[in-house]
């Protein structure tokens, strides 16, 4: 977080990417806990954004998220990502049950420099954190209306990148996901001044 604050409370593109990746980490862990995808005893509570957030202890999940999010940070700092989707699927039938979309939009920041890496934002850090906290609260409140996941579920993180991005090793191209009979709910959005992140949850309507 300290590196995100360069000088005089300026947020650079890299710093913005770091903030968003942190949000994604906590958000995905929180969703994993709230939606009951893994048993509750595998989670530890930590304090972040002034909230208690439960983080998975499973080394497989943590390493997976570490790998995905480091790549995401790299791409985000080059503005190459349109959207990040966390997809919850039935482990047996592979049916997509829920999709959490984190839509990324590049913003100009204070100075509309031609080179995006030179852009900075002077948005207050605490304000950003407050905005993220509101979104996190909403995520934990979604449990009240989202349908119960009564089967063994698993999750995947898909990144919607630009068409010309080169894929590193162990990364693979996959198709877009489709939810049958979907319903979408838009949550709050937050902005670092350089990126605007909208959170949307798509879920399968229980018939």
């Amino acid at each position: 977080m300290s590196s995100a604050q360069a000088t005089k409370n300026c947020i650079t593109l890299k710093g913005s990417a770091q903030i968003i990746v942190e949000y994604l980490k906590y958000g995905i862990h929180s969703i994993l806990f709230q939606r009951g995808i893994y048993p509750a005893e595998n989670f530890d509570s930590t304090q972040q954004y002034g909230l208690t957030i439960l983080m998975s202890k499973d080394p497989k999940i943590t390493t997976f998220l570490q790998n995905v999010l480091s790549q995401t940070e790299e791409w985000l700092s080059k503005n190459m990502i349109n959207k990040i989707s966390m997809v919850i699927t039935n482990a047996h039938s592979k049916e997509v049950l829920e999709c959490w979309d984190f839509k990324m939009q590049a913003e100009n920041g204070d100075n509309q420099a031609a080179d995006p890496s030179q852009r900075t934002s002077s948005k207050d850090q605490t304000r950003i954190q407050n905005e993220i906290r509101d979104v996190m609260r909403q995520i934990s409140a979604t449990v009240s209306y989202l349908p119960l996941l009564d089967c063994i579920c698993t999750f995947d993180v898909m990144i919607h990148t630009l068409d010309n991005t080169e894929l590193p090793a162990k990364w693979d191209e996959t198709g877009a996901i489709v939810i049958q009979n979907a319903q979408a709910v838009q949550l709050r959005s937050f902005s670092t001044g350089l990126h605007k992140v909208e959170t949307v949850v798509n879920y399968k309507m229980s018939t």
Partner: protein
Amino acid sequence: MDDIRSSLDNMVDHFNDSITHSAPKKLLFNRLSISLSDDSASLPKKRRVEQESPNCSLNSTTDSTNNSASDSNGTWKMNKLRAELIETKARLSQVQDQLKQNETKRRMELSLAESKVSALKTQCDFTSQKLLDLTKDMENRRGLENSYKEEARRAKAELAGLKLKYDETVNKLKNEKSQQEQDARDVQLCINNELGDYRRQAQRAELELQSTLKELECIRQRHDEYKARMSGYEELRANFEKQQQSLKVADERIKELEFEIQSYTDWKQVTKVSQERLASIPEMDSELQRLRVHNKQLNKIIGDKLLLEEQVHEYKARLDKEEGSRAEAAALQVKLSHTERELKEWVKVAQDHCLANTLVSPVTLRSRIEQLLQGDIVHVSEKYASESESKQMRNLVRDLEQKIRVYLKNIEDLNMSLKRHKNFKDRLQRKLRTVSRERDFYKQMVDNFDKDLTMSNASVAEMTQDMQVRYRVDVLERTLTGYKDLCTTLDREIQAMREQEQLSDPSSEDYENVKKELDTLRLENDRLRRRKEEQELEIMQRCLRQDISPPISKVVHLVDNPAAEAYESSKNMLEKLQAEIERLKRHNKKLEDANEQHLNETTSTSTGGMTMNFKELNKLRAELESANAKLGKTKEYFMAARKEFRDVVYMLLGYRIDRVGYKSNYRVTSMYAESPDDYFSIALSESNDLALLETPYSETLQPALDQQLAANNSFPPFFSSLTLDLFQRATVTMT
């Protein structure tokens, strides 16, 4: 091609050369002809003659010479020469004609040759073109050939590579094959070894089986022995049981005998006691009489006491009643005072409310109240009437208000029209004013003209010309100002008219139309706005769902993600479970087969026994049920019999004996007992001794107990005496 062309050119040159070779001849001939023609035809006759003159001169010279020889011959010769000349001339013309013919022929030939040359040239061009095409084609072919050759070379190289590869693979496969063969040999060896092992094991197992069979036979023999022994034992046991039974019977017999002995001793004692009693009968009689007297006295005393007790009880009840009535009286007195006070208050109230002169009484009060109530009723009815009236009035007022509104509207309309009329009137007045002003002005003008006329007529003499002119100018200026004023007023009026025209409200019909249109437009507007909002919502939904064609992007994910892992694990699990199911199915089948074989082989094995066991179990169950049913029936029968027996015993002996508690405690109640609480409690100890336990009733009978039970140590006489006693008492009370 060039060679061909050059050769063709050479040919043409050669041909031309040949022509030119012939040309000198022709030229020579030409020159000859020209010279001839020059000599003969082309030159005019005179000149020719002059030219001929040298000849002539020559001839003349000759002539002269000849003349010198002879003149006579000369004329002849001249003629002759002339004839020859004519002849030569004719010949010359002939030759000339021939020459001409030759020339035409030559020209013809030349033209022919030229045409031939041109044809040849065109052919040559055509062939050269063809040649060029062919050479190009040839080059192309060569290029193609080269490429094909390269391809062929490449293919050959590939073929060689493939050959090498296949050779390698063949070698590899051979190696593998050899390895596999070796493996197979190894495996075969292993299998053979294992087979040998197994065979050995099987032999060992057979040996073991034989030994076990032997053992089994031994065991069977032993078993038979044991069976024989067991039958012996069973016989022995039966004997033993028989003996035991006989022992029991003997014991019972002994017990009976002992009992009889005991009873005999009892009897002895009883007889002794009775003998003693018999001895003491007279004493007892006297005592009895005394006691009877005493008893009678006691009975009397008891009766008196009872009477007294009854009286006391009665008095007590009366006292209670008295006390209750006293308390009641006190309460009543309190109440009375209270009511009196209330009454006084009521009287005061009545006095307040009644007329001053009349006597105060409830009747008057009631009448007063009735009056008031009637007044109330009247008031209420009046109130309702007034309310209904007020309602009517309100309705009326509402109607009137509506009417007023209508009238006000009418008044407004009328006011508007009045205003319009007023405006119109104002306009008319203004117009009238302007018209009158115009009239005044014209009048003034007329006056001016009149004055002018009079001035021109009368005061010309008096005023100077200058003065006149000045005056006229003044007058004219005034008229001009008047004109200007008029103009301005007219302008103003026009403006005002225009404004009024603009202001003039549209007619009511137009207004209505416009209003309707406005309403419809408003409705349309609302509808469209709603539609717009719906569409916006729809769009938002679609945006959220990404139905709108997404920007060009590709979706990527990490290959080893939890989802893939989960799918894999679930798949593995499924396969494992299926394998397990398959295995279990096989196992099951094997077991079934083995079971069948077993059944076929022996029926006395454990599995066979199981089915037997089941059958037996069912049989036993059925037996159990029937036994239970039997038991129930016997129980019922027993209960009925027991009840009957108990009733009979009760009726015959006068005592009911109930078993109380789980220990052998018995409650004995007499038929003639005065209350159900009068009972004895008797316990049977382990040594079959009966013991009387203390009860409230037994305490009351202490002397009788002491006398009979303690003395005789026997219950039946005690109970029979008690029965007698109670019976007598009951009959006494009955009588």
